[in-house]
């Protein structure tokens, strides 16, 4: 630490060069922060801790095929099942198909299975008691400026009403918040009352999209899942029961291999960055050869010269990375408040910072090592005479 001013002086020797290199590093880590945030959002969707105790039971044929309601009581009776609820995909459109958000008809007790959605008790009660009631996540309400008491019309894509009309009108009776800020991306949902849906729809009355099951002990989730699937084995409505995470993970992985895309981009970015900062460090050391010789002359050991040069590279990378990650954080906050959760992003938090700074130090060491070894091996006489 006592050599900090020496490292600083070395960086400030050519201000323009340091600044340009810093800006390149900054751009690389800004990108890293943003991409990692997207990546996190996708993997969080499938690995939320809150979902560990929940199972999703869908038709084995595909999740678009519905299940009979008779399974409800039978699943409830399976040992280890704490609570069962059910829901159906609605796929409604608000004003324009581009305003997409998931809309689902849910059983009265559905929200009890999701303690991570926080909603005042009065609104919970209103949701149970209002036939045309609907509740939405806070970020969705914010996106369209909805308030409690609003009437919200959705156009049905799958389920017309009995009279043939495609317009379903709901009364907004509650707005829920995610208790965990990392889950805020999942707030973009519209839930409405099952009974209204089931009575009014033109076809499919009595059939169910999927069952959500809370198990008493997450450690026994696998056993419970098998027991549930055994209920319908060899019937014409076999189920496939899995944890909520694996269900979402399977769906997300079918959309795109986000990890692969992000990984490939970051590989290209960091490869370029290593070359670029490596070149800067090599230039910096070449220019300062006589100065390094002087340092050695006045008693700096070869090892401390090595340390100084490595520290210089690491510091350059770390400063650039820190500014880049701060910027990424600001951009993410701006995008989230502007666009809601249309683009999945998690806040740039501790985890991303840890990975980013770790990478910065690693790259600093990689690009610093060649010039630093060169500096360490300098022979004073040769260097001073400019040979």
């Amino acid at each position, binding site marked *: 630490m006592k050599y900090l001013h020496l490292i600083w002086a070395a960086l400030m020797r050519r201000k*323009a*060069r340091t600044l*340009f*290199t810093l*800006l*390149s*590093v*900054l*751009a*690389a880590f*800004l*990108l890293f922060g*943003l*991409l990692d945030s997207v990546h996190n959002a996708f993997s969080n969707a499938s690995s939320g801790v809150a979902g560990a105790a929940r199972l999703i039971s869908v038709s*084995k*044929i*595909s*999740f*678009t*095929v519905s299940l009979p309601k008779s399974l409800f009581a039978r699943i409830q009776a399976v040992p280890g099942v704490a609570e069962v609820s059910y829901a159906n995909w609605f*796929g409604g*459109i608000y004003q324009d*198909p*581009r305003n997409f958000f998931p809309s689902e008809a849910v059983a009265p007790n559905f929200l009890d299975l999701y303690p991570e959605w926080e909603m005042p008790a009065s609104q919970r009660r209103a949701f149970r008691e209002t036939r045309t009631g609907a509740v939405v996540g806070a970020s969705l309400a914010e996106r369209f400026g909805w308030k409690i008491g609003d009437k919200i019309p959705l*156009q*049905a*894509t*799958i389920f*017309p009403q009995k009279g*043939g009309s*495609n317009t379903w009108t709901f009364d907004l009776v509650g707005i829920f918040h995610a208790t965990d800020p990392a889950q805020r991306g999942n707030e973009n949902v519209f839930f409405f009352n099952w009974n209204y849906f089931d009575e009014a729809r033109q*076809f499919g009355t009595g059939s169910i999209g999927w069952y959500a099951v809370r198990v008493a002990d997450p450690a026994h989730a696998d056993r419970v899942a098998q027991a549930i699937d055994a209920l319908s084995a060899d019937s*014409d409505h*076999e189920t*496939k029961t899995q944890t909520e995470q694996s269900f979402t993970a*399977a*769906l997300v*992985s*079918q*959309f*795109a*291999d986000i990890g692969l895309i992000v990984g*490939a*981009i970051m590989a*290209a*970015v960091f*490869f*370029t*960055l290593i*070359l*670029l900062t490596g*070149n*800067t460090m*090599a*230039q910096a050391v070449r220019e300062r050869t006589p100065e390094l010789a002087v340092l050695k002359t006045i008693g700096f050991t070869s090892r401390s010269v090595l340390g100084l040069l490595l520290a210089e590279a690491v510091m350059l990378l770390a400063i650039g990375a820190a500014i880049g990650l701060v910027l990424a954080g600001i951009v993410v906050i701006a995008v989230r408040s502007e666009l809601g959760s249309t683009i999945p992003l998690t806040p740039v938090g501790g985890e991303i910072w840890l990975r980013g700074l770790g990478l910065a130090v690693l790259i600093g060491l990689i690009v610093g090592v060649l010039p630093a070894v060169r500096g360490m091996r300098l022979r004073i006489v040769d260097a001073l005479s400019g040979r």
Partner: protein
Amino acid sequence: MRRASGLMPQLRSAAMLIGYFVVPVAVLLLSPWWALLLIVAGLAVLIATTRAGQQVWSVTRIGISTIPQRLGSSSVVVVGIAGVVAVLVALLAMAQGFAVTLQQTGSDDTAIVMRAGSQTEINSVIDHDTATLVSQAPQVARTAAGLPIASPELVVIAALPKKSTGLDANVEVRGVGERAWDLRPRVKMISGRRFKPGLRELIAGKDAREEFAGVAPGATLKLNGQLWDVVGTFDSGDAHNSELWGDTDIVGSTYRRGSSTTSVTVRLAQASAFDAFKAGLQADPRLQVDVSTTRQYYNAQSQTLAQIIRILGTTVGIIMAVGAVFGALNTMYAAVAARTREIATLRAMGFRGTPVVVSVMMETLLLALLGGALGAAIAWLVFNNYTASTLGANFSAVVFSFDVSPALLWYGLRWALTMGLVGGMFPAMRAARMPVTAGLREL
């Protein structure tokens, strides 16, 4: 008077910034290829015929001949720009490939009819009477035997294991009517035979066969508890390649859909008959349907995802470009600094500033072009026809291949030249403005 003279240098540098910087960048990014070719040709003529042009040429030659001495730092420009272009072109090629696959699926002379408001086939239900009414419309083309070329189709989803991961993914099973072959003449069997109507037989699209396990001809599949024989593989050259096809009636009975289907697709007698076809169906009080040409239908499906990927690609490209430009600036400033004495000597001998500016610019542009070409080549070699799959509008796999088209490669090169222009401009100005006397004294 004093104020005016104080303002002059600022105005001049603002004018220079616009003249040397904003205009060329705009020209590079916006003008068509032939205009750029003309500009290049014009410059070549100027260099060959005018005295200043010959000065530019000789200074540039000196600069370029010293590149090998600065190989390390010059490669920073090349590799930096190559990275940007490769990532940009690859991401845009992904968007392009997806869009092209879906757009090819549609045409103007076939129309798809679904229940009103349903947006996608999987959401739609068309009952038997509606399907019959639709295929009897006068605008529908007829076979030589006088039968309407219409196919009542039933789209359902099956979960099959993917070859790559072994995990279940959704594949679209499309029940098609007897005249689907007249409706889509492009569909060719590439192995096995067509399914026989009335039997539990399936044929697999070429991409579905590549992507999913157990759908090669000869295999037996269990769908909804019943066994199906896979009897062939077809190639349609479009998004249908991701599907499995069977007989509508048999798929319907297996999935307990009775006689209802999800859509009716018809061939129109001619494309211009579409408006009359649509108006006729919508005026019919017995029907509540949405009618679109298949081109409209598939274009709409491709738009959202392609747009998201394009925005993502451009954003990533811009941020990377900023990083690469600063790398290029570093390199070119260092290059100018290394040649300080040489440039000062040229100036002392009477060379004007412009040849010096132009020569540094040309050198940077050359490196940028090299980087752009390298990046484009990487994108093309690695990603052209690279297959990927995503979930389409019917919640099932759409397999597509990246399309690294010449237009995209050219777009990537433009980005490269723009980065070179920005990265070379400031070092070039510095070289030209250097006081001659100070430069000569530099070691």
